[in-house]
């Protein structure tokens, strides 16, 4: 057990050490705009011990916080409710369908995500609330910064990219191969502009106001 832990620590150190000679990936949308919040997962053969830390997907101000949570396969997530109203968090994603019926505070048990994939979170009573949990296979998971840039480890060869606004199916992770002897790579992810969300309120306002 200790060994395992120390390996992980070593690996982390080595990964950190490899930082110097890392590869940089720049992600833009089809319009050339930097695409922040894109999740890049790098495939590698290193078997690592499962992360047993419990991730947190909080609900603050009728929003999921964070909006995008990346976890590893098998990791558990807590869904505390920091609002003074109740929420009904659910997921119909195949990766992990679940439902936390109306609750306040923190549910009794965190939810364990055994499968990798995308989990879209919603709240049944607050339609505008959308959250994503990216359940990664590998532990090399990165999220693009505000400039759409990600530094990837040197060994990166095959990687997948996912973005919540991608025009591809939401559950699809787009696969890429890093070209040989390239340090910098630029990829384009086709996105769609999110539609404004209609609510009952809007509907009724529209009709009554007519």
């Amino acid at each position, binding site marked *: 057990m200790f060994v395992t832990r120390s390996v992980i620590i070593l690996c982390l150190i080595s990964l950190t050490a490899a930082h110097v000679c890392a590869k940089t990936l720049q992600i833009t949308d089809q319009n050339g705009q930097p695409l922040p919040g894109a999740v890049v997962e790098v495939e590698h053969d290193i078997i690592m011990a499962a992360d047993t830390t419990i991730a947190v997907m909080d609900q603050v101000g009728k929003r999921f916080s964070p909006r995008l949570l990346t976890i590893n396969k098998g990791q558990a997530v807590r869904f505390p409710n920091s609002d003074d109203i109740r929420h009904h968090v659910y997921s119909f994603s195949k990766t992990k369908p679940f439902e936390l019926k109306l609750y306040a505070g923190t549910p009794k048990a965190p939810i364990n995500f055994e499968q990798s994939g995308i989990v*879209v979170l919603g709240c049944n009573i607050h339609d505008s609330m959308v959250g994503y949990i990216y359940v990664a296979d590998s532990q090399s998971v990165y999220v693009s910064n505000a400039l759409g840039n990600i530094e990837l480890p040197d060994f990166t060869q095959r990687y997948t990219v996912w973005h919540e606004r991608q025009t591809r199916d939401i559950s699809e992770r787009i696969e890429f191969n890093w070209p040989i002897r390239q340090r910098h790579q630029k990829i384009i992810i086709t996105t769609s502009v999110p539609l404004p969300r*209609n609510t009952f309120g809007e*509907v009724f306002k*529209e*009709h009554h106001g007519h």
Partner: protein
Amino acid sequence: MGTSLKNRIILLCVGLVLLTSMASLVSFWWSTSHFNERQVQQDLKVAQNVYQQYLKAKERLLVTAATVLTADFGFKQAVATRDADTIRSVLYNHSQRIDADLMLLLDVHGKMISANQVDIVLPDDSRALMKALLANGERSTFIVISGKLYQAIILPIKAPRTIAFSIVGFAIDETVALELKDLTSMEMSFIGHASGLKASSIMEYPSEQGLLGYIHGQRLNRWFKEHPVFISAEVPLAALESNPISVVLSADLSRHYQEFDQLVLTIILLSCGTIVLGFIASGILANNLTTPLQQLTVMAKQFAQGNYLATLTETKPSKEICELVDAFHEMGEDIQTREKQIRFQARHDNLTGFYNRSAALDLLSKHLSGSEQFYLVAIDIKGLRHINDKLGPRVGDSCIQAVAERMKSVTEAMKGFNARLGGDEFLTVLSAKPGSTKQACVTQLLSLLTDCYTIQGLDITLRFSVGVVCYPEQAQTPDDLIRRALIAVDTAAHAGDEVYYYQDGEDEEHLERLQIIDELKQALIADDGQLFMTYQPKLNLNNQQIDKVESLIRWKRSNGDWVSPELFIDLAEQSGLIVELTQWVVSTVVMQVSEWLSQGLTMKAAINVSAQDIADDGFLPHLKRILADNTVPANLITIELTERDMIENEAKGIAVLQALKSLGVMISLDDYGVGQTSLGRLKMLPIDELKLDKVFILKLDESHQDQCIVHSTITLGHQLGFCVVAEGVENQPSLDLLEQMKCDYAQGYHLSRPLAAADFSKWLGRYHEVG
């Protein structure tokens, strides 16, 4: 008949009613058709609003229902799990819940996941359909799916991201159209132009014409014109570009037409009724008005025939007609009164109330019809002119009236009648009493009439001339009777007798005299030689020369009869023809003298002139002119006047004689010695010559008295400065005596009879040869 009052009134009334009806009908037609048109347009507008509200309501329902559906967690869950059976049952369940006819579930790529109906087939481009629906947002869109029209809406199913789309819709079919029709009372037709789909409230229409064709083409034949049955408004609905849908609102006008026609028919019927009523009413009115008028016409005609008692048979005449009839009656009475008066005046004399001449003729002819014997007495008041002149015409009239009274009293007893012929002439009829003579009758009458009259306080004795004719012995006709009575009374007056009984034959003589006057007039006008002058020579005893003639007129009628100068001159004087006759004589004689003068013979000529000639204003100018025209010296002409002529109208006569004398004409006093010329008057007369009447000369040689008278008269004449002429010298001894007595001129058969101008010239030649 065409212009009778009745027809005019009826025509006027009916015309007015007709005009009013036509005007109201036209104005009604105009305003109603306009109102109807506006109404229809208004209805269409209202219907549009209604259907829009209806569709909107449906749309809201749709949106609400669909939103609720898509927000349902279980539904979302079912969709998310793609549990086909569950989804299908959910769709079915929800469609039942919101009564939606169409409920589809599509994945985000537009592929149909599930539907509430089994046989729904989406079009190939379902993605485009989805996009179009999405583009409409919350608004419903009309789409055609599987040959059916739906009002549909698309909503995403979010969990929380859009995981699918749900299309929810209501079928728009005949039921909806009918429902809308109930709401709007318009025919509603939803038409998909691309697919030719129709959902209409109009169920029955000929399939070969098509619904639109039917709506636009349907015509109604009415008022000789085709009218469209429908007025339509086509409104496009929110639909796919590829399959536009519109709704056609059609107002069915046939009901409007029907109502309108009904109304028009009612008005026409009412108008006809009013016209008939107007016809009848005006007919009655006109009858009421014209019947009395016709009766009044009949009345007036009867009045014209003298029947003034005619009256109106109308039972209830109007006030005005009553007044008119009263006026008619008054008029009739007045006319009757006046007629009586006029008739009376036509037949009567105003002053005496006796019949006038024409009435007398009438009455006489009535009397003549009987076989009764009677006397017709003409009475003339003698000297009435003097009474009028001296006592005034009122007294004269009173005298006439008094005489009439007396006559009336007499004739009343004798069953006769009286008439006044004019002036002072009366006529009375006396029945011949058996056993009494006409003389007795007349005497009785006269004795009454001649009694003294007291008139206006004056005692007046009147004298009468009376002429009597007996009927039937002396005359048979009224005209003859009256004329003969008047001849008799004239004879009485001229003779100075009181009574003269008409003698048979006097009338014929009278008529002949009238005829002679007429012929004389013709002869004067024609101047064809019937009348001619003869000249009797006068011997100037002082120088034994024939230097003067007396011109004497002669008349030989065209039938060869001689008319005695005494007779026709007398008649000429009576008829006033003497003036013209004398003018003719003057002209003829002066021309003769002028002719003699031109032959170198200076012969004086004497012309006989009557008092009437002297009194005529034209005499002197005529003589002057004739003398001047023929350039005959005035002293060659002598005017001979008898004593009687000279004293008539003495003052004027003397003035004319003076004028003649100053002209140079000689004046001779004819027939001196037998008249009434006093020596005193002789002294005053402006004469140049005395002509002794032939009674003293004819037997002068035998009568000592004649010789004394002639001698002394000659002496008297000479001493008064007159020349003296003796006429009627028949033998030499008388001529010798006259010569001894210093008579200036001798004239007579011893010398020569009066001779025509040509004979006179021959005689004169012989006389001078002998002498």
